[in-house]
């Protein structure tokens, strides 16, 4: 574990050089300790895979003061508590009409579509980081058998709620955005709602499990297979067809 300077008002704590459930649990605990013990000088915190960036008010303390405080927080970490973090269940509709990359991913993995779905929802994931877009949570690790590289050409528009895989990570797109991950289903749960408290159903260090639901359950939970999504998928299909021609 080490503490480095990041900027004039930021220190970064490195817990390890790779992400793991153990590291995620430590980060979950550490960020709560930092919020408690450094509250009066803290401006913002960014927990990520194996680090926490701590942004402080340089008119209230210097980096040496903060460093000592952070060291104190690290000393208080209880490493045995790997099961920290809440377990959040996210419903997942793996319907083929909203999973444009599922068939290709299965084929590549030499598995059936059903097997891919089973493997994806059996795993318990850790929220390793939140970023890229408001509410975008990076979940890992995906079972090696269904890990898949990003698309060679990212999509201009990924639908809101899309469940996706890239390498050994999975995620739910919180809003319509460009993206190169493999889309394997849709989640009806809003991953980011500025009007709600909490804004997100998950935070860094939480555990996530996907639970398969059928189409009527998906719709009942407020999921949308609206015109927008249909139009997008049709557009993508047309693009593919014209490429083949």
């Amino acid at each position, binding site marked *: 574990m080490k503490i480095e300077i990041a900027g004039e008002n930021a220190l970064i704590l490195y817990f390890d050089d790779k992400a793991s459930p153990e590291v995620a649990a430590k980060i979950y605990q550490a960020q709560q300790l930092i919020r408690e013990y450094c509250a009066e000088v803290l401006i*913002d915190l*960014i927990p990520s895979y194996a680090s926490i960036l701590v942004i402080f008010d340089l008119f209230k303390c210097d980096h040496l003061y903060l460093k000592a405080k952070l060291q104190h927080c690290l000393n208080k970490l209880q490493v045995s508590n790997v099961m920290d973090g809440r377990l959040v269940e996210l419903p997942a509709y793996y319907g083929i009409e909203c999973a444009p990359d599922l068939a290709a991913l299965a084929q590549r993995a030499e598995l059936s579509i059903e097997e891919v779905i089973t493997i994806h929802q059996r795993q318990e994931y850790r929220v390793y980081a939140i970023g890229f877009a408001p509410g975008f949570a990076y979940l890992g690790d995906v079972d090696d058998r269904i890990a898949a590289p990003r698309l060679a050409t990212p999509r201009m528009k990924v639908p809101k709620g899309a469940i996706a895989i890239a390498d050994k990570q999975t995620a739910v797109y919180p809003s319509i955005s460009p993206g190169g991950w493999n889309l394997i289903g849709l989640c009806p749960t809003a991953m980011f709602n500025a009007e709600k408290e909490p804004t997100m159903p998950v935070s860094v260090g939480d555990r996530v499990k996907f639970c398969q639901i059928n189409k009527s359950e998906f719709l009942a939970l407020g999921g949308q297979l609206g015109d927008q999504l249909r139009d997008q998928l049709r557009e993508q299909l047309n693009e593919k067809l014209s490429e083949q021609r």
Partner: protein
Amino acid sequence: MSSFIVQQAGMLSLLQDAGRFGAHHIGLTTGGPVDKLAFKWANRLCSNELDATTIEITLGGIELIAQGKSKIAVTGADVPLTINGKMKALWRSHYVNDGDVINLGFASKGMRAYLAVTGGFQVKASFGSAATVCREKIGGLDGGKLNAGNVLAITAVDPARINSSNVILVEKHRPTYSTDIVLRTILGYQQQNFSALAKQLFFNSEFTVSEHCDRMGYRLNGEKISANIEGILSEGICAGAIQIPADGQPIVLLNDRQTIGGYPKIGSVIALDTAKLAQLGQGAKISFAQISIEDAHNINHLAQCLFYNTQLQQCD
């Protein structure tokens, strides 16, 4: 209640308060004024709290029609300011009456001007801030830039504050926007992944601002700076952080930066200097100078003292 009607919005005019803090953990960036000093002066000239909501106007080209009496000040980039067609000075306050036409032409020096109004613009806070971040569709007017036809409500204040004497920041105290600047930089983050030679090259070369320069970051062109790693596990990015991607061309990250990223970083530019960088456009020349974090803290405290000890002068 007074307000302004947007007649012409300009290329990129955004409502900005001091920025959004405490929401990085859900992926929200800071936003806020890229030139914080000019922003603070605009508010001080209007006898506002220093974090009141202003308009950040990139390149100029904005026209507003006043509804009701108010008092404004414009700071930052050198833009021709007129009220009802009459030329007015920047870095000072002006009374504005019902029906007055406020016009800002295009910037001749600097990129961003700040228009403050006594009381500040009234914006519903999102995550504790009015700062507009277009990419996140958050803050300001539904997360977007100003458009013609928008009505900008002004927070009501005691009329005595509007009627008080006008004030000016005399020229010798104003920041200047040179097109050749030195960015004071603290080594940090992955600095150990840059060889002594790479660091020498970094601090002794001149870079040019590329066409890719916006509120998110400034991409520079110049000597290729190499790290001995290609990427890192994504981690939090602070304001002013200098990313060095595989092509070796530095990117200085500003207010609308992504919160996490996986490029190696050699260190960070201090905020007093990113404010100057953000006033530059494509083609400007810059270089980096290494300072310690202790130096950076001294510089910040001295700048703070200077800001508070600089008196505004009354004018007619």
